[in-house]
């Protein structure tokens, strides 16, 4: 069953068509990768899904619910969370606070409950702190909760961003180049972690990725974009052999094997 469906979605910036009549179906509990050369419209599509850009044409559905016209904060409540290509944490909030902000939409305390410090508010805060602690531990950041996000090393910032996204309790998680700037062993850890998210937590993952080793290693389905258009879709094996994809990536006449090392 498809959790996310895009129908003829189009996003233009002036004369530039960044996403061009894109049809996409993301099946539940799969890892679905989107690849394509720089400027192919991958991140733009993410921004359309999460509500930061408005589509000019077409529609996007989450579990049959149209996302058209919803604000980003409404969309995250429906169960779509994301991370960013260039990490965007709240730099001078602690790691713990970053995760707690992710929990924001699941907390119910209102203004007067906060001022009166009702027992329900207190209990909720305690639960939230506990859950945030667990999430930090889950991404292997236990003990780092009290450091400012900006003071964490790069790899930990990446993981913290994922913890923050997980705190919103997403059904669909959009990861924008999660392995950018990582060494091979860190990349491997991130791959295992992504598989873990799908298999243990049952989260569907939509992934933008440039490292072919990652894409081919963990994806169930791969969609290839070029100039905002879908040029191919299929399992990693099918994509590896697809002559159109090879042409888009490497130009005419290149050998299929080179796909494996292209990054």
């Amino acid at each position, binding site marked *: 069953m498809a959790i996310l469906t895009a129908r003829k979605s189009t996003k233009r910036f002036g004369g530039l068509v960044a996403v061009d009549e894109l049809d996409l179906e993301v099946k539940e509990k799969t890892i679905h990768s989107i690849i394509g050369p720089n400027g192919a419209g991958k991140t733009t599509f993410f921004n359309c899904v999460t509500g930061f850009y408005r589509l000019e044409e077409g529609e996007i559905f989450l579990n049959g619910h149209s996302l058209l016209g919803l604000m980003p904060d409404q969309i995250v409540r429906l169960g779509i969370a994301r991370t960013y290509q260039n990490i965007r944490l709240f730099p001078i909030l602690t790691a713990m*606070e970053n995760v707690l902000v992710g929990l924001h939409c699941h907390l119910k305390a209102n203004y007067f409950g906060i001022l009166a410090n009702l027992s329900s508010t207190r209990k909720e805060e305690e639960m939230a702190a506990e859950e945030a602690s667990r999430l930090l531990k889950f991404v292997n950041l236990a003990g780092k909760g009290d450091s400012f996000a900006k003071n964490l090393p790069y790899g930990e910032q990446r993981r913290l961003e994922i913890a923050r996204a997980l705190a919103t309790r997403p059904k669909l998680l959009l990861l924008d180049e999660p392995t950018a700037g990582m060494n091979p062993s860190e990349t491997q850890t991130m791959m295992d972690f992504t598989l873990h998210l799908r298999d243990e937590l049952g989260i569907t993952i939509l992934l933008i990725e440039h490292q072919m080793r990652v894409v081919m290693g963990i994806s169930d389905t791969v969609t290839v974009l070029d100039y905002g258009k879908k040029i191919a879709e299929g399992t990693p094996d099918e994509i590896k052999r697809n002559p159109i994809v090879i042409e888009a990536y490497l130009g005419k006449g290149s050998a299929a094997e080179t796909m494996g090392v292209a990054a």
Partner: protein
Amino acid sequence: MSRFKLWEHGVKAGLLSSLMTVLLSLMGIVEAFSQRQIVSGLLSMDYALLGTMVVFMGYVAAKRTSRTEPMWVVINSLTCGMITGGMLLLLILTGEAVNLRAVLVNASPALYKILGFGHGLEASPLLFVSGALCGLFAGISYLLPWAIRRTLIVSLVCVVGAGVLQDMIRPTLAAREVLAGFSEWVFSSNGLTEQSAAALFLLAAGITLFWSLKGKAVQAGFKALPGKGQKAVRWTGIAVLIMILLVLPQVLGLFLSEVVTIVGLYVLLGLGLNIVLGYAGLFDLGYVAFFAIGAYVTAVLTSPELGFFSLSFWAALPFAVVTGIFAGVLLGIPVLKMRGDYLAIATLGFGEIIRILVLSDWLRPWLGGAQGIGKIPKASVAGFEFGMPQEIYYLILAGCVLVIFFSLRLRDSRLGRAWKAVREDEDVAQAMGINLVATKLLAFGTGAGFSALSGAIFATKLTSVYPHSMNVMISINVVCIIIVGGMGSIPGVIVGAIALVGLPELLREFAEYRLFVYGLALVVMMLVKPEGLWPEAVRRREFHEEIEEVEPAASTVSASS
């Protein structure tokens, strides 16, 4: 050229220090400060200021030197001091030769007399030597261990502070019969006596030294106490603080209480803007508008002069605060999409609109126009009237306690986190499920409510309100308080208000240079301590006890998704 490297920092710091001292002299600050003796007949505030400047720059020179040998450190700071002395000398010489006064009003013979230690040109070697001595002192103190250096600094600051604030301390002491004799021993007719200055210096030095030697042990002792013991110590501290706050106006007397009430009103304003600017990062420069609304609503509802309502202060207060909140939200709506500079300009406009409205002839029948509104009744509780500054103090204290309490609750809540997230990155905050509209409007409304409360108390304190007291300088003062105190820090607001509002009220000499001092304070803070005088402490809240497995986390997340 390579030999110059050895001197480079001394020369640079010397030129900078010359620039600053000459500037202070030509602005008239030195002359203005010369009236105030710190230690009677020994040290006055002008020399203290110039000396501090030179010592500070000499210290910077010593710190920056590329060589670590004590000789070079001292030579650099000495160079700095000598250059400054030389330049001041040059200023006197120029002044004697050319009439600078035609252009620089403050380049007066009186100034040269001060710079020449009362003698003018004949004392020129003395100026040079004292510059060098300041430099030498800076260099040597840099070489001393930190504990001794700190002791020196703290003791000197205590002596200078006691001297500067003598006008406040002396009457307070003299008013008590028991202390009158003590007061005479401490203060001569102008400034500290020499023996009391020495005693104060030694006392401060003793305490600081004791703390540097034993402070760790005391802290460790506190940490070693069981949880209950720590709590008891903490509560005792709070109880002592409350006692001090309660008896404060009785001790301080009329004038000082007046200063404290003004500081208190700014603390209220600062805590409100702290929510808007410090937490939510919304740069509101029209903040005085809500102060004005609070004051005018109180005035209109209570003053018999207009004859509309003549309510009591307490009946009018809720209306004032609610109107303030409402205005805050109303202003928030059109500027929701604006950020940073644009927001500052738009809100600045709003502040001016309110001021011009209350000034206008058009609204005169209702708001009094340029004459303002008078005869606002004093607040009273069960026959006790808050009339004198010493009594108003309690009203403001109650307001501050309430607002601090609200600020603390909000800061540690889901809403406080949402505000901070919006401050850090608005887009990502929204992508985390934060409703920007509601969050920003709540910040605007809360801040405006605090400000209106301050305005209402201001109205009953003065028993009249005028348009000209609602000018943009109030907004700017409050922004400065927050920046100097520390963005988003509640104690920072209090420290900032004391430093930027209290001190200038106490030091008459500052009055003329108030804006200069603000500018200087902002620049120095940005360079030296950008996080503010008392930055917000990081809240420690991660659970450090072990949680057994990773699995529970997984199940929680999956169960709830």
